């Protein structure tokens, strides 16, 4: 059974524009993927590629303009089945309310663990789950460090016993040593609670460490998907190659950087959306939009020249 199945997901935002009528932002433009139960799919890409829009649609903070989202085979909105952990814990929590309040609120909303004693017990259990002690309960977000606060948002997401967590840049605001603690917590929780993760990140090293499968996104579309091992060790799509080469690593020398920047999602380039920056683009790339096609090793690549890139 798949934890998450997404078919032809699409999100077009209409924005008002003075001249010449409204314009349409193609934030997500026909994306399909599956997350088998117990696995972690990481969606990687640069800002504006649409990855956070996918996160928001998965938890129904945004409504898709097309396509389907199934969580454990079920269509429709089930907020208990799938929960979000977002990038910035400070803005995710009410700074005037205590940590206790943050953890009790979802229980109250969903009518879980009724009764004062039962609810208090569940709140303690949630804190313990993320490695925090009771002394945090009466603090407000301002009195807690970023790493600890991110644990609180994880605990809050787990309050309703979801089976899938959508992690939207969960470690981006954290320092190196604190980041490692959160990564370990996420690994541990997945194991203990049998969770499945959709991990949205621009931090390639985090994806490299946590993901079983990877989807590489560019301007609203997936350009390459496959097992993490394959994609990270032998990237196939020219964009995946450029993206991985651009990430400064301790023992990696940088490749030749791409020129230019990501084009506007209002008017994505015709043909392959990456062709304006692609070092391997040929004439056909500006006319024909490549489909995701299965490669010999099972991964999917959307590139007209995929055969030559093996």
């Amino acid at each position: 059974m798949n934890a998450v199945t997404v078919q032809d997901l699409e999100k077009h935002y209409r924005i008002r524009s003075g001249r010449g009528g409204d314009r349409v932002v193609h934030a997500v433009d026909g994306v399909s993927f599956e997350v088998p139960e117990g696995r972690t799919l990481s969606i990687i890409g640069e800002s504006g590629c649409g990855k956070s829009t996918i996160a928001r649609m998965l938890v129904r903070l945004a409504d898709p303009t097309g396509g389907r989202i199934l969580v454990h085979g079920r269509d429709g909105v089930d907020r208990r089945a799938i929960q979000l952990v977002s990038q910035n814990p400070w803005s995710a929590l009410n700074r005037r309310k205590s940590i206790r309040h943050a953890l009790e609120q979802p229980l109250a909303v969903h009518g879980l663990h009724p009764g004062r004693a039962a609810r208090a017990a569940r709140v303690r259990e949630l804190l313990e789950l993320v490695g925090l002690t009771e002394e945090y309960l009466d603090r407000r977000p301002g009195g807690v460090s970023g790493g600890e606060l991110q644990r609180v948002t994880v605990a809050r997401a787990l309050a309703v016993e979801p089976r899938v967590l959508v992690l939207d840049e969960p470690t981006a605001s954290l320092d190196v040593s604190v980041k490692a603690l959160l990564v370990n917590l996420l690994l541990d929780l997945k194991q203990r609670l049998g969770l499945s993760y959709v991990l949205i990140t621009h931090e390639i090293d985090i994806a490299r460490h946590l993901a079983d499968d990877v989807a590489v996104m560019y301007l609203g579309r997936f350009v390459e998907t496959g097992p993490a091992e394959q994609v990270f060790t032998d990237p196939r799509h020219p964009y995946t190659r450029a993206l991985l080469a651009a990430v400064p690593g301790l023992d990696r020398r940088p490749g030749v950087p791409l020129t230019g920047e990501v084009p506007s999602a209002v008017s994505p380039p015709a043909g392959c959306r990456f062709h304006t920056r692609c070092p391997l683009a040929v004439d056909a790339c500006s006319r024909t939009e490549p489909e995701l096609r299965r490669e010999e090793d099972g991964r999917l690549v959307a590139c007209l020249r995929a055969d030559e890139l093996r």
Partner: protein
Amino acid sequence: MPAEQKTAGAVPPAPAGAPLLSVQDLAVTFRTRGGGVPAVREVSFDLARGEILGLVGESGSGKSTLLTALMRMLPRNAEITSGRVGFGDADLASLKEDGMRRLRGDRIGLIPQRPMTSLSPSTPVGRQLRWHLGDIGDGELRELLTGVGLGTVLDRLDGYPFEFSGGQLQRLLIAVAALGKQPDLLLADEPTTTLDATVQAQVLRLLLELRDRTGLAMVFVTHDLGVISQVSDRIGVMYAGLLVELAPARAVFETPRHPYTRALLEAVPGRGRRGEPLRTIPGSVTGANRLPGCPFAPRCAAVIDRCREELPEARPVGDALVRCHRAEEEI
């Protein structure tokens, strides 16, 4: 700023071989209701012409405060409490504000973390460039912007900052800071942190090219170990206001000497096996600035009694300067 001040030179060129910048025992203290908090302590280093020194550390390590102190742009509740910052003949730690003003922009450039907040949102970008660059001709401006890979925005300079991408704005600021008045020293505070990976790679490459072309020296502050490994000749690792290790970049990554440096490198994801727990550093940095001994002692795996009582001096070990009582031992 009048051009003759630059040629008159508040700072005569240093004799060959002398460092461009020489920081000695610098300390910066923040005044708080609970008393003074030492944010930077006993920091000493030299910077040669054309050299890039990377300063790395986590939040609260003092790396940004140190950079702001060098620029003398500390917030009101902070002050330089001791030390010397030799830059040519001048001591930037004690130089009067008008002397400092002559150096900023002309001899010392700054690249901030967020380009958007460093520009006026309501003034066309081209006009702001001229505020900083003075009366420069179109040809010169063209050359300047082409030099930072901005040839494509030349016809859009009447636009406002929001009409440019983060990468473009950061290049504009680099053009102003590094090329405009051809300073000797560039201070960069997390200059690529808000940029995407592919754009970050372009900007890092640009900074390296500028250094090669102009002999500019740089102090480059970041929390990103990957970034710092790409640009630095030498690396300084900061913890709780102290420079705990200072060494050639390669040495820091290949033979880290300070237990904090080692712990930090081991905590970086992507090096170990996928799905395995990462090494972590127990405890937190909170309050470490006020400890009598080594600030890292409460979290250190190699701690001995002496560490809790006595602040280690910086001492040479191999190519490195290390503040650790056990720096010479194989731990």
